[in-house]
């Protein structure tokens, strides 16, 4: 009677014997694999799932049979043991169902280990939530580029690394000129539209290794690893020119903005990550004072 649980439960159950032949395969496994129990029962498990014939999996099976161990395969590292399609059509985040699996021993009446069981839990939904939360935590909601928190943690990482091992990296601070006027003339929705347009244009110029973040309202910050002032200056100038040329069409109206930029570089005498930001900020404000639409390098 209790046997019914085996097929009713919303968890996959596989039973293997010591020769790694399939001895049990519940309804859940049938549904998600498309393989009926009678098709797989008695056959070698590794015939159907050759990718599991790897040292870690074999090691785990051995430890179950020799010690009666329980082994755990977390979703974090393994993502899945069995490559099954996800059940939800709504979420394209994962190609395969994310699984949390474990294996353990099955003993006979003399306590001898005869089989091992593997259970498979579908944790796709939880994994998707987790990924989404991680993204929210590091990205700016409006523009989709990194947020200030993320940039600051990267910056302090880079700073500490350079303080220890030397080398060079730069920061470019940039700010949209007369942004308040855009908001006042065309409304905040237009302002948001411009923020998105500027950030995506700048993001299209940077290299893969650079980090672009929204630092404040209309202020952005770009971290350029392994880059000294001369190259950073070229990059900043490219940003400036690109935005100057950009025409944004908002509701049939062409809007043009410019940006001012300040560049700072990691060098002796700069004692903290905050000081690098301060130096870039000072340069930025000099650019503003000197007429805007301009790049200024720290002293």
């Amino acid at each position, binding site marked *: 009677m209790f046997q019914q649980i085996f097929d009713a439960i919303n968890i996959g159950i596989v039973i293997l014997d010591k020769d790694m032949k399939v001895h049990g395969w519940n309804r859940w496994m049938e549904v998600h694999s498309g393989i009926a129990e009678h098709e797989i029962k008695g056959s070698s498990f590794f015939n159907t799932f050759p990718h599991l014939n790897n040292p870690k999996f074999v090691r785990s099976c051995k430890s179950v049979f020799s*010690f009666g161990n329980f082994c755990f395969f977390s979703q974090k590292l393994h993502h899945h043991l069995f490559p099954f399609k996800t059940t939800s059509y709504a979420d394209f985040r994962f190609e395969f169902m994310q699984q949390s699996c474990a294996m353990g021993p099955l*003993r006979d009446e003399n306590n001898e280990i005869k089989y091992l069981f593997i259970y498979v839990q579908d944790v796709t939904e939880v994994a998707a939530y987790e990924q989404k939360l991680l993204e929210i935590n590091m990205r700016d909601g409006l523009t989709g580029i990194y947020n200030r928190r993320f940039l600051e943690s990267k910056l302090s990482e880079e700073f500490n690394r350079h303080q220890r091992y030397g080398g060079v990296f730069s920061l470019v601070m940039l700010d949209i000129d007369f942004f308040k006027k855009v908001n006042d003339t065309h409304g905040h929705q237009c302002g948001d539209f411009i923020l998105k347009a500027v950030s995506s244009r700048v993001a299209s110029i940077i290299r893969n290794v650079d980090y672009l973040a929204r630092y404040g309202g209309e202020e952005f910050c770009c971290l350029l690893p392994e880059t000294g002032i001369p190259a950073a200056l070229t990059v900043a100038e490219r940003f400036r020119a690109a935005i100057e040329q950009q025409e944004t069409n908002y509701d049939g109206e062409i809007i043009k903005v410019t940006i001012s930029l300040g560049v700072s570089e990691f060098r002796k005498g700069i004692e903290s990550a905050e000081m690098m930001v301060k130096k870039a900020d000072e340069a930025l404000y000099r650019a503003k004072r000197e007429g805007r639409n301009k790049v200024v390098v720290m002293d």
Partner: protein
Amino acid sequence: MMEIHENQILTSEEGEILQEIMNIAFGKSAADLADVIDTHVVLSIPFIKIMQVTELPMYIREHVKDYKKISIVEQNFWGRFKGDALLVFSSGSGKELIAMLQHGPGEISSFESDPIDILERETLMEVGNILIGACVGKLAELLKDVVTYTPPMVVVERYYTDALSERQFDVDKTAIVLKTDFSFTEGNVSGFLFLVTNNDSIKWLKEALRIFIEQYE
């Protein structure tokens, strides 16, 4: 003080039998471990000590202080014999183990996108799980018990004084601490295994020890 306390719990004869059983159990697990993880693990003769649970963090710290930084894998086991297993690895063990275990080509590909710290965590967990299971499982087997385990929890590369908190342990309980040091013949990996069990298991343990020794009498 301590002596009186210990005597209340296990007689010296019972202590000796337990010691003997652990020698056998760990001898067997060392042999089987070589088969499972392809390297020989040296397990020292286990040492048994009985103390108040609150003294335990101090006791463990005293043993691991030379390591400075440690990683801990913790697992609860329960059968009639139940308790906590704490496996303390020396600093750098995780990375050594990654190098030792990741030689299969299939394995590397399944890991390549993951950062080293996740890999280190998982490797410590896997090896910890196997080691704990081997030692606890063999011990239980000799005492005719079957135990199950919770998934392992892991603390990676923490300064030894921060890695263990007093709050983790239930006050007013007595701990039977079974301490073993282990080292891998390959790679620079070593550490301690502490099995902490309490009063609840004592009655059963005494009985199991008696039955065990009867086989030889």
